[in-house]
């Protein structure tokens, strides 16, 4: 079965080392074609189709398999060819290990050439092999390569070979495929203006050398959302200085795209710049305005104080591209009959992409997906190709799809493999389930949730014990009972990480059967739960903590309002109500104690849409209301999370999944402190406690909303809370909650982190068995990384969904004027918040075609002086809100100033009864 060949491999420098490796060549690797007598069932991988369906190619009429070479495969994998016609990709890659097709590197031959030769040998072998298989059946393997020399050699050796383009063009049945072909053809470049815009990227080997010696820095490229000529690079590694490098100007960005891993070179200090506060969007249609751009670039470099200068650099090479397919829209070329068009991605950080298509007119006004193929040195924009059509712009389904795709939210329906791990219905609790489980069905447990909630993952109870103490229980849905480690269901939920709540849609982490039925702690049914039960005295001091798996039967599913009503009404004295009152009393004490310790109460404007029940259009906006019962439930969830965190960390010091919230660096607070100072208030930020206290004291009798505004600003200063593995970190502190240790235990239906925590806790109390991955801290760290990413993305998607619905709302509502407060002051704009809608927007003061008003920006206070009016943070203004549909891609809420009136800037107050076109024109002037 084995043939062996031993050969000497190269010596390595630095103490000469001789490496002896052996390699076994196999004679048992099948060709993958089913029914091949010679190979039998030796092939285990994905098999080829028995009879490749004829894709009606004019160059090759008989049925055939395709064998692409490595480059074709890498670049054209997205092209939607019929999968069956691909010769098993795996086989082409592993054939070098097979005895018949083994190719030894010849002298003077480099690795690439050897690779090409190996593939040619494989193609030849395949052809001979298939001929042997059956003489009458004219199966053939066609070799696809884009390399001219490789093709010539192949034809010399008698292998039918074509370039990718030749082949796809010959597919008479599918003419649209040519659009999807990644354009790599050399002719393509010749048409471009011959002028070279960008400097060359250095080869990887040189970059690595440079990074090692410190001349270059490696980091993640992050384009700016607001200014297409500016980007920052986050340097990898822990060196404190030069953590963030600014890149300015097209040439310095040097074809890097958002999220790429790049190597940058620092510029000399004399060329350092400060981040500009100008908002700039790429508007140019043609290539010739490179000079014009240089002009704008110069504009960016306004004189600034020495202190503001940040390390500045330029991209010298790309270490790893992180391109993905992008959603966006086609901006049709002005030239008729042109096949080249620019594509504008929805994400403003992605440059526009040039694509070639013949169906421009049908794609206009639709959301499409485009992939980048490359960015030649002489091209202003990257080249790409069309992938998929999502639907009409503005359609709710299309827009939802776009925002899910853009935020990388997995939203496909669950696969059969996943669903097969669901429990069979009808489901009931069996003897086996009761093992290691306590029967708590007799307890008076109830759940309190927002209205319309179907995935209830927590329930509570409180009762007085005989010794006068109180017993408080938090019961969490036992999701880990249904999701067993390692199966497809577990893997899928781990991948999704979290349930994503959009305005009118919920993207579940686990299939609905679990999320809304078997795991949901609905009232009056027996449900499996994981309970955390404390014995407390009336002073809310914990005397005893117990964790147990249990069976519960919730007596009532209440909304926050209903629960509040029960607590408040004097004549209700049933078990549930007394239980709630007890909980409420304890929660108040707990909250007080927590705040004394320095927990922050922050604020962010949250809105809720009232949907039309039929059209699902938003008909009203409402800021979320907070009741006592909200904080009651929250207190006990926090308590449960903290208790569980302590327990699992005690038990698994190396691999407990915890959540931490790092303290923000003092510089984050600058905005807040400055803003408060402008109102003669002092905010102390040295500790969480002093921050909380100074926020409490920061009140102005004439301006009651100020405190909320300050809290909103403070929220913006915070860091992101993250999951981590306790063995990989030693700072566990949760800044916002002022708790030394914290985790997530209470929402396993919608967060995967909780599922892991449940498993850890179950092992800790001996209720479940452990499994290998659970105690592997590197695997756990990987899970944490994914969860943090998914949570962040879910949050962004949620915000994007709110923004979209706000637009729909204002579309139906027309133009309104509202009071607003200034949150931030920028160089040429102010950012305002409208409390009524919880809506944030930017009012621009500079336009392209109009003489700029005189703007004086003061960074220290911060204030912006326009003509004679000065704007400070927290100033009250009146703005007009309307929907701007001038840019179909980014329909947005446009705000313009109404009060205070500045001639030439603000718009008159009585425009509200003008027809729709009137203000639109005006606003368009005001925009940009």
């Amino acid at each position, binding site marked *: 079965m*084995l043939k062996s060949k031993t050969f000497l491999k190269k010596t390595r420098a630095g103490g000469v*080392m*001789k490496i002896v*490796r052996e390699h*076994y060549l196999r004679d048992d690797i099948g060709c993958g074609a089913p029914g091949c007598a010679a190979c039998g069932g030796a092939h285990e991988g994905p098999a080829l189709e028995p009879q490749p369906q004829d894709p009606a190619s004019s160059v090759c009429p008989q049925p055939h398999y395709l064998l692409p070479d490595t480059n074709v495969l890498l670049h054209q994998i997205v092209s939607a060819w019929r999968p069956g016609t691909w010769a098993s990709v795996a086989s082409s890659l592993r054939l070098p290990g097979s005895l018949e097709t083994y190719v030894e590197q010849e002298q003077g031959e480099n690795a690439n050439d050897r690779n090409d030769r190996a593939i040619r040998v494989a193609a030849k072998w395949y052809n001979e092999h298939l001929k042997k298989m059956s003489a009458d059946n004219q199966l053939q393997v066609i070799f696809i390569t884009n390399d001219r020399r490789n093709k010539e050699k192949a034809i010399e050796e008698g292998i039918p070979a074509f370039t990718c383009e030749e082949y796809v063009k010959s597919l008479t049945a599918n003419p649209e495929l040519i659009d999807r072909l990644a354009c790599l053809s050399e002719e393509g470049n010749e048409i471009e203006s011959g002028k070279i815009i960008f400097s060359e990227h250095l080869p990887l080997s040189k970059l690595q050398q440079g990074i090692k010696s410190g001349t270059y820095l490696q980091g993640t490229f992050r384009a700016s959302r607001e200014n297409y000529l500016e980007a920052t690079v986050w340097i990898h590694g822990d060196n404190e200085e030069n953590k963030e490098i600014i890149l300015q100007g097209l040439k310095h960005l040097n074809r890097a795209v958002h999220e790429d891993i790049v190597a940058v070179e620092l510029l000399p200090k004399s060329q350092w710049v400060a981040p500009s506060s100008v908002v700039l969007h790429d508007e140019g249609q043609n290539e010739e305005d490179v000079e014009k751009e240089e002009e704008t670039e110069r504009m960016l470099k306004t004189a600034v104080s020495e202190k503001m200068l940040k390390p500045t650099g330029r991209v010298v090479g790309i270490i790893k591209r992180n391109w993905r397919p992008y959603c966006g829209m086609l901006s049709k070329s002005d030239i008729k009959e042109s096949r080249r068009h620019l594509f504008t991605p929805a994400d403003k950080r992605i440059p526009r992409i040039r694509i070639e298509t013949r169906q421009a007119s049908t794609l206009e006004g639709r959301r499409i997906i485009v992939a980048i193929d490359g960015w030649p040195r002489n091209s202003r924009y990257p080249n790409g190709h069309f992938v998929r059509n999502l639907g009409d712009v503005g359609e709710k389904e299309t827009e939802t799809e776009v925002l899910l795709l853009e935020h990388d939210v997995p939203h496909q329906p669950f696969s059969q493999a996943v669903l097969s791990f669901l429990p069979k219905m009808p489901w009931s609790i069996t003897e086996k389930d009761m093992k290691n489980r306590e029967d708590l069905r007799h307890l008076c447990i109830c759940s309190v949730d927002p209205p319309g909630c179907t995935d209830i993952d927590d329930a509570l109870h409180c009762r007085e014990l005989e010794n006068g103490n109180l017993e408080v229980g938090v019961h969490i849905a036992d999701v880990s009972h249904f999701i067993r480690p390692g199966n497809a269901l577990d893997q899928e939920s781990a991948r999704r990480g979290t349930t994503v709540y959009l305005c009118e849609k919920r993207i579940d982490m686990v299939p609905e059967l679990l999320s809304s039925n078997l795991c949901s702690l609905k009232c009056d049914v027996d449900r499996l739960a994981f309970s955390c039960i404390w014995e407390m005295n009336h002073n809310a001091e914990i005397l005893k903590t117990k964790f147990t798996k249990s069976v519960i039967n919730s007596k009532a599913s209440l909304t926050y309002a209903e629960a509040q009503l029960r607590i408040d009404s004097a004549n209700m004295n049933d078990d549930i109500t007394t239980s709630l009152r007890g909980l409420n009393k304890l929660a108040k004490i707990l909250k007080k104690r927590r705040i004394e310790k320095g927990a922050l109460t922050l604020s962010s404007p949250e809105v809720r849409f009232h949907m039309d029940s039929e059209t699902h259009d938003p008909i009203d906006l409402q800021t979320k209301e907070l009741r006592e019962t909200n904080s009651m439930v929250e207190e006990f969830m926090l308590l449960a999370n903290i208790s569980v965190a302590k327990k699992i960390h005690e038990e698994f010091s190396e691999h407990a999944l915890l959540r931490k919230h790092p303290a923000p660096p003092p510089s984050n607070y600058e905005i807040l402190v400055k803003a408060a100072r402008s109102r003669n208030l002092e905010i102390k930020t040295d500790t969480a406690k002093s921050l909380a206290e100074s926020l409490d004291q920061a009140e102005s009798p004439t301006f009651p909303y100020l405190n909320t505004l300050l809290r909103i600003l403070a929220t913006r200063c915070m860091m992101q809370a993250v999951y981590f593995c306790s063995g990989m970190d030693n700072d566990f502190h949760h800044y916002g909650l002022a708790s030394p240790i914290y985790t997530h235990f209470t929402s396993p239906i919608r967060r995967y982190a909780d599922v892991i925590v449940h498993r850890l806790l179950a092992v800790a109390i001996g209720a479940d068995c452990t499994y290998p991955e659970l105690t*592997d801290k590197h695997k756990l760290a990987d899970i944490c990384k994914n969860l943090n990413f998914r949570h962040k993305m879910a949050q962004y998607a949620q915000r994007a969904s709110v923004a979209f619905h706000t637009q729909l709302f204002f579309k139906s509502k027309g133009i309104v004027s509202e009071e607003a407060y200034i949150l931030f002051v920028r160089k040429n704009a102010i950012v305002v918040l409208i409390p009524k809608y919880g809506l944030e927007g930017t009012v621009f003061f500079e336009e392209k075609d109009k003489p700029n008003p005189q703007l004086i920006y003061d960074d220290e206070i911060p204030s912006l002086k326009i003509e004679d009016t000065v704007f400070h943070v927290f100033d009250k203004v009146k703005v007009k809100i309307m929907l701007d549909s001038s840019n179909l891609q980014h329909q947005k809420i446009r705000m313009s100033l109404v009060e205070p009136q500045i001639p030439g800037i603000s718009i008159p107050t009585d425009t509200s009864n003008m027809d729709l076109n009137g203000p639109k024109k005006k606003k368009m002037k005001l925009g940009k």
Partner: protein
Amino acid sequence: MAGLELLSDQGYRVDGRRAGELRKIQARMGVFAQADGSAYIEQGNTKALAVVYGPHEIRGSRARALPDRALVNCQYSSATFSTGERKRRPHGDRKSCEMGLQLRQTFEAAILTQLHPRSQIDIYVQVLQADGGTYAACVNAATLAVLDAGIPMRDFVCACSAGFVDGTALADLSHVEEAAGGPQLALALLPASGQIALLEMDARLHEDHLERVLEAAAQAARDVHTLLDRVVRQHRAELRGGHRLVLGAGFPAADPAHLHVGERHGLHHGGGAVCGRRPCPGFCPGLRRPPQEVGGSASGLA
């Protein structure tokens, strides 16, 4: 070692083997005439030489003699040129001492030491080239050498290493796989009874996985046994063949079921059917005495 894929998606290892496959094993017995027993083994690129003296009287301090059984003395050394970087000391370092102790433990469990009280058996093993699985190669070589010396044993001792990568147990790790830093387990097995002579692992491995890795190592050890068994039979056949030449006639030819005609003693294990029988009852007496004695007795017979 980042970026090195120890197990490909298709299930092949870096050197082209599948997860449970051994490297090519070649072995020879009786390589030295001076020693009582000797053997040489190659497992892939790992090459080891074993020499056995004894049982003989206790050398050195008599106090070490055991009243009820023989003393097994094992010494391990590794040639300075055995590894990629030249070693400073060929023997006497910590690793060699430890390996010696492990070998001793292994063979005390296998050799019927109670048959030779107050005597000593010396096993010297030298690794000529190290490419992973040195312990296993040493044990296998030493087993053959002990058999060559004719010292009675309970059974063969067959050893093999196994590792664990990406949820799959790999048998007979090569140096590249060992250096990647995953858990590695060494197992010495008495295949007939399935008893374990030595099991050693110094890495963290979840207990759920241990079973599978152990099974992979045990299966590999059983495979090694099949091969070693064939080596022994062939050696016997050669000896008999040799005597036939000396004596002219009178000895039966080698059992054809045990030998592949035309196979050189380099011992390919390719393709052929493997003798599934337990060690045939006739081989032990033939080997118990050194060849020259066999010759003597044979002439006595004649």
